[in-house]
């Protein structure tokens, strides 16, 4: 690739379009502005979902009912899950996609800039609906984030708000995905072939396809729930000849690809960070692309491992067990390649790399417990226990959230032209790492001992581990205030970032664009060899 730097000059005051202040953000069609909006929205939702988690852990601090009634506890677990999955983790990676994809492929913006604006501004309305459901008669739905029938048929009006919110969130995701796929397929700079794209772009291309295929299935599931509730159908209502288990099949046909919709962009971030701080190219680039594609394809044939206990035939259990185990093969390829990239590299451990290493250890642990859960005889024993809660938090928090932190620390200098406080960044990593494990590692023990999930009370024998887990959760929540402080400090008074703060970073935004990146980039496509 050539080293021509796009130093396209722009006046400081006239480059944000026609509007200033709040109208700039409402009307913006610039991918960087929209990326920033996604990232801040995601942080707010993380905070809301995190507060709900603190409420849950407060209740579980001691046996007996402490601070809330069981119904409200169920509402909190439901909304915590929905907000974290749809309002926090997914948008944070769409924020990365908006900022990074055009810059990484040498495009001036996303393919559909106005649609991009609309995709974002749908989100606050959906989030408002979710939160408003708490104030409806009967409160928010207490059905779990999976919204299983027949409970959903029995809930109050809060359920309708949630269904509407899920529809809007799904629409936002589908429109965003169409935009991302079109941008990547049609707007790459000349010379940027598919197999030259940074792995972050590849993982998002595959994720966007997953979203286009899986999200409408969720929309179908909640639409059928809606018609069961209000229009006299009986898709899932056994009283009318429907089948509640059918809902589980339809939901998890969306739900398992959703796990990879959340994880794959995180894999992409890690695949940018590890080579940069190892000062080596990514090991096995092509195999990473194929492994990511394989994970995406396999994710559509493993859904029933979430429902081994519904009474399916042994043949079905065996099929889904072996198919689930198969996921470990491409995932193992990826973990091997990340470690091989680090092997004999000139390693340094700045904050992004620390979070990447934390991701590697913790996500792999979550993957291993996933393998344990893929085994039918074991899964039947620990189904709906805290072992499952521990497993998916290792995947979601250590997988997606650690990757998101790695990405934010990695690209913040490029986005803002300011360095974050490295010492505080490292403190943030270690606090998050320690408190995360204090919170969730002990939940494996609780699950193996038989503590069920989604229950506000428990026998005395579970008290010690629950107290430890709650203390960890409070610590982890407080640690994120430090993250907010680090970002605000960098924005207000951070040291000026050098042109290339990470010497091993080699994608287009580092090699072809100045730091901080101008508001408009690659108006002329870069020349790539």
């Amino acid at each position: 690739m050539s080293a021509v730097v796009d130093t396209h000059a722009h006046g400081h005051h006239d480059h944000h379009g026609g509007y200033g202040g709040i109208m700039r953000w409402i009307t913006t069609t610039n991918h960087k502005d929209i990326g920033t909006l996604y990232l801040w929205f995601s942080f707010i939702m993380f905070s809301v979902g995190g507060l709900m988690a603190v409420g849950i852990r407060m209740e579980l601090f001691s046996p007996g009912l402490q601070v809330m009634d069981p119904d409200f506890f169920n509402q909190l677990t439901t909304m915590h899950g929905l907000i974290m999955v749809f309002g926090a983790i997914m948008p944070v990676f769409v924020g990365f996609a908006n900022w990074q994809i055009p810059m990484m492929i040498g495009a001036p913006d996303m393919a559909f800039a106005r649609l991009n604006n609309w995709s974002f501004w749908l989100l606050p309305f959906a989030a408002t609906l979710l939160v408003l459901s708490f104030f409806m008669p009967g409160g928010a739905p207490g059905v779990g984030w999976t919204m299983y029938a027949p409970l959903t048929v029995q809930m109050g009006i809060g359920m309708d708000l949630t269904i509407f919110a899920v529809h809007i969130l799904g629409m936002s995701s589908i429109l965003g995905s169409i935009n991302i796929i079109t941008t990547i397929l049609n707007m790459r700079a000349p010379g940027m072939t598919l197999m030259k794209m940074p792995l972050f772009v590849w993982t998002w291309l595959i994720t966007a396809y997953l979203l286009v295929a899986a999200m409408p299935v969720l929309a179908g599931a909640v639409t059928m729930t809606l018609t069961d509730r209000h229009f006299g159908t009986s898709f899932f209502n056994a009283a009318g000849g429907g089948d509640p288990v059918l809902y589980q099949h339809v939901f998890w046909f969306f739900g398992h690809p959703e796990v990879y919709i959340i994880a794959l962009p995180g894999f992409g971030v890690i695949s940018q960070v590890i080579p940069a701080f190892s000062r080596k190219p990514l090991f096995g680039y092509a195999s990473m692309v194929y492994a990511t594609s394989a994970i995406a394809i396999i994710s559509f044939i493993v859904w029933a491992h979430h429902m081994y206990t519904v009474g399916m035939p042994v043949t079905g259990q065996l099929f889904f067990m072996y198919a689930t185990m198969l996921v470990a093969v491409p995932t193992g390829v990826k973990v091997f390649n990340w470690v091989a990239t680090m092997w004999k590299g000139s390693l340094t451990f700045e904050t992004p790399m620390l979070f990447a290493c934390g991701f590697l250890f913790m996500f792999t642990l979550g993957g291993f417990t996933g393998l344990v859960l893929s085994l039918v005889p074991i899964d039947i024993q620990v189904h709906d226990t805290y072992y499952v809660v521990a497993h998916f938090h290792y995947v979601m928090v250590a997988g997606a959230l650690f990757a998101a932190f790695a990405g934010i620390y990695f690209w913040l200098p490029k986005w803002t032209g300011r360095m974050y406080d490295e010492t505080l960044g490292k403190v943030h990593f270690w606090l998050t790492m320690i408190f995360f494990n204090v919170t969730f590692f002990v939940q494996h023990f609780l699950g193996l001992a038989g503590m069920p999930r989604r229950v506000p009370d428990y026998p005395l024998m579970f008290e010690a581990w629950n107290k430890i887990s709650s203390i960890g959760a409070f610590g982890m929540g407080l640690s994120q205030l430090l993250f907010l402080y680090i970002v605000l400090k960098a924005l207000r008074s951070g040291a000026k970032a050098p042109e290339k703060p990470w010497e091993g970073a080699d994608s287009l935004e580092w090699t072809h664009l100045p730091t901080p990146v101008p508001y408009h980039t690659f108006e002329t496509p870069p020349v790539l060899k």
Partner: protein
Amino acid sequence: MSKNAKTALVLASIALASFLGIVAKYWILRG
């Protein structure tokens, strides 16, 4: 029609077919 619009149309059709397909499968075909 631009290349971008064509790509978007194909993808939107896939999404719409998934949505309508899953509802139709259990509604019209009765499971």
